[in-house]
């Protein structure tokens, strides 16, 4: 009787397509990592443009009664600077980081809607190009908040204002599509075992960022559409002689504009909450409190917009309400800061560059948070609003809450993205210069404001110590710029000669470090089972246990070993 021999299972290996690296692979890609890189590179270029604009502003103000630029160019410069930093750098840079790391951190193989994701990027680029093309004609000059009636066709007849409107529309659409994509991805594509209570805190902030964008952006989209029809089609939404109201613009703009602040800083907080535990070798202190405070800040952020309008003719009841709601938002924000300090407490803090940037970010953000209390108190706001005090405040908030965390994120994740480490010594130098530059530039601006110098003025008289204070601030801005340049040099150098990073150079906690650096196209061959908020810690522990208990050494290598761990 012939015995039946089961056929040996075979895998027929066809040629696997080599990953394409040409420029067409970039413009046709739907891979979240390539899109993420394009986001980050594009927004970093805009950051440099915005920075150059800032340096020109500071050069003009470096001496009293300076005539380096005309009032027209000065107004164009600060309008471009503010708009660029908000709409073309911080918000889309966060989207870039999220693009790259949301799928990796939650154990997904891509975003939920990869083609929509590509569309988000190309809309962002289109918005940036439309806006910057105005440089060749007439850039907008009504400020990044486009004061109305100043921004209507009577007082700003040039097309620059329209370029600004299209920028808001295009980047807004980009952000809304991105936000829907992030939300869907996080809600549906998490690894097995990653319950809401095990979601990395950076992912919590991106989830909140997405919800904020979805609620806030339609309001600004409506407002700029109204401005567009006002400028070109004869509507009168903001014209008091026809029954409209300029205050309506302020309400609509700030109803978007204040949540926008949290859209910018919450992902930064997320980065801090990821980086500190890794370099303190300690779990985050109060995971639930940090996640909950993120959501609380987002909710309260929608109730405080009128604190940007304390000097406008609005009823006193609103002033009081908004003062109290703005105070209230200080509580969850303070909770976060104290939780971060408690995370460092009794840890073993390693002073690597990402940790330095995070510690600097907390120190700087705290100054902005405290000056925010002065601005929330409306009688004090009446004195300091619209002066350099506010300029100082907003820069401390955004540099501490968004920009320094972005640098921390770059230093932390560069090894994952490129496979190479950034130089530590250049990183430290860059941090030192940036930190010193921020303090030198902006601390003194509180005093400039208290001495009565309004913002958005292209010249000032040589009275009191204004000349000295402004000169200090200008010097500081160049120190800050030098710090940024050191980081750019570091990128260029490390791409070629950086130390090869390996999968998990920091001994980190989250799933992106489970993949090789850079990760392959579809991220994970096997998605590990998540059993805590720090899955990589579990995996490392398991590997250690198995390798010391004498199992085969092969099981100890990531990711083959870990696939067994995960299942």
């Amino acid at each position, binding site marked *: 009787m012939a015995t039946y021999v089961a056929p040996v299972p075979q895998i027929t290996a066809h040629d696997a397509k080599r990953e394409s690296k040409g420029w067409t692979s970039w413009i046709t890609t739907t891979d979240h990592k390539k899109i993420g890189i394009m986001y980050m590179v594009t927004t970093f270029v805009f950051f440099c443009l915005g920075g150059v604009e800032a340096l020109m502003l500071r050069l003009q103000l470096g001496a009293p*009664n300076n005539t380096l630029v005309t*009032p027209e160019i000065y107004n164009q410069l600060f309008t471009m600077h503010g708009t660029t930093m908000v709409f073309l750098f911080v918000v889309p840079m966060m989207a870039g980081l999220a693009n790259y790391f949301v799928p990796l951190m939650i154990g997904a193989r891509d975003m939920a809607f990869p083609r929509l994701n590509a569309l988000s990027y190309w809309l962002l680029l289109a918005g940036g190009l439309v806006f910057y093309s105005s440089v060749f004609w007439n850039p907008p*000059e009504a*400020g990044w908040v486009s*004061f109305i*009636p*100043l921004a209507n066709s009577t*007082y700003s007849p040039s097309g620059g204002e329209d370029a600004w409107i299209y920028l808001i529309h295009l980047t807004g659409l980009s952000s809304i599509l991105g936000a829907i994509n992030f939300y869907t991805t996080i809600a549906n594509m998490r690894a097995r075992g990653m319950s809401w209570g095990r979601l990395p805190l950076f992912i919590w902030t991106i989830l909140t960022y997405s919800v904020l964008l979805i609620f806030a952006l339609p309001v600004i989209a409506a407002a700029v559409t109204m401005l567009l029809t006002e400028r070109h089609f004869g509507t009168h939404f903001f014209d*008091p*002689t026809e029954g*409209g109201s*300029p*205050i309506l613009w302020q309400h609509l703009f700030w109803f978007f504009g204040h949540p926008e602040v949290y859209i910018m800083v919450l992902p930064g907080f997320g980065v801090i909450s990821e980086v500190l535990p890794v370099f303190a070798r300690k*779990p*985050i202190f*109060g*995971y*639930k409190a940090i996640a909950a405070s993120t959501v609380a800040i987002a909710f309260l952020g929608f109730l405080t917009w009128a604190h940007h309008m304390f*000097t*406008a*003719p609005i*009823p*006193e009841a609103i002033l009081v309400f908004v*003062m109290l709601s703005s*105070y209230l938002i*200080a*509580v969850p924000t303070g*909770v976060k*800061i104290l*939780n971060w*300090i*408690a995370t*460092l*407490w*009794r*840890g*073993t*803090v390693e*002073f690597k560059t990402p940790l330095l940037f995070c510690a600097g970010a907390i*120190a700087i953000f705290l*100054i902005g948070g405290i000056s925010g*209390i*002065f601005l929330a108190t*409306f*009688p*004090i706001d*009446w*004195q*300091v*609003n*619209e*002066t350099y005090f506010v300029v100082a405040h907003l820069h401390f908030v955004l540099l501490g809450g968004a920009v320094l965390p972005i640098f921390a994120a770059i230093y932390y994740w560069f090894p994952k993205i490129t496979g190479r480490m950034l130089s530590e010594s250049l990183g430290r130098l860059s941090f030192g210069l940036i930190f010193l530059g921020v303090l030198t530039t902006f601390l003194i601006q509180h*005093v400039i404001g*208290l*001495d*009565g110098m*309004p913002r958005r003025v292209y010249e000032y*008289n040589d*009275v*009191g110590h204004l000349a000295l204070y402004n000169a200090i601030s200008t010097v500081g801005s160049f120190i800050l710029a030098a710090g940024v340049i050191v980081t750019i040099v570091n990128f260029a150098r490390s791409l070629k000669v950086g130390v090869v990073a390996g999968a998990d150079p920091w001994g980190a906690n989250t799933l992106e470090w489970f993949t090789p650096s850079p990760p392959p196209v579809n991220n994970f061959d096997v998605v590990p089972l998540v059993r805590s908020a720090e899955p990589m810690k579990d995996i490392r522990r398991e590997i250690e246990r198995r390798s010391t208990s004498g199992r085969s050494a092969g099981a100890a290598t990531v990711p083959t070993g870990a696939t067994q761990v995960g299942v």
Partner: protein
Amino acid sequence: MGHLLHPTFAFFTPLSGGSPNADHIDSLYKITLYIALVIFVAVEGGLMYALIKFRKRKGAVAAQIRGNTRLEMGWTVAAAVILVALAVLTFAKLGSIQNPPSSSPGGDELTGDSVAYASSERKLPPNGKSLNINVIGRQYIWQFVYPGADEPDGLGAPYSYEEMVVPTNTTVTLDIASADVVHSWWIPELGGKFQAVPGYHNYTWFKISKPGIYRGQCAILCGRGHARMIATVRAVPPAQFDEWLTNQKREITEANAAAKEARAKLNSQTGAGQVENP
């Protein structure tokens, strides 16, 4: 350039010293500053201490602590208590900042037509009497219209540009409006700033005891000339003010009459010298 801005400077506090509302804002600011400094030193100090004390050392092992509910509740409540205290302080100070006092003895004898009507936004002194000046912002100059119109519609009222002359020891209420874009009225030593918005009225007040010149400038971007949209308030003794106002009114009347005459002359011309639409 002359000293166009401020005669006195303070490093850590807003300018004050011209009017009680500015002084009360200054004292509210100082109380807030003291509380803020304590928080600043405590939190930055805690951060520095944690970074230095717990830096990585040989043999040190990080404590695996995931939280402490009692501690976290404690600092949440502490933060809330500090903010409640700040809110109470602000409300305690608010009246003296917002509500104008009556003029002091030695102030201007205000006549009937300078009395404005109070409303929930426009606050008036207890005796209901103030010198009410309409402040009108326009690109790029401030206009000040005084009481004393010839006609009920306000025509013929004395006015001035850029420099507002006011009597000392007299409560001055301002009715702030705009003729074109949004501006912001601000003389730091005389209190906070208030937007001049087309279609709206905004109100504030000041009362100056020391004669002198108080300088400020438009505080909201209003176009290319924004930086040069300056304003000065010159406080003079009441008698001198009355004289100035009478003089101002006379000069305006005379200038109007001269202009009328010139127009009539142009209109009557015929032939080569005739001007179309004079």
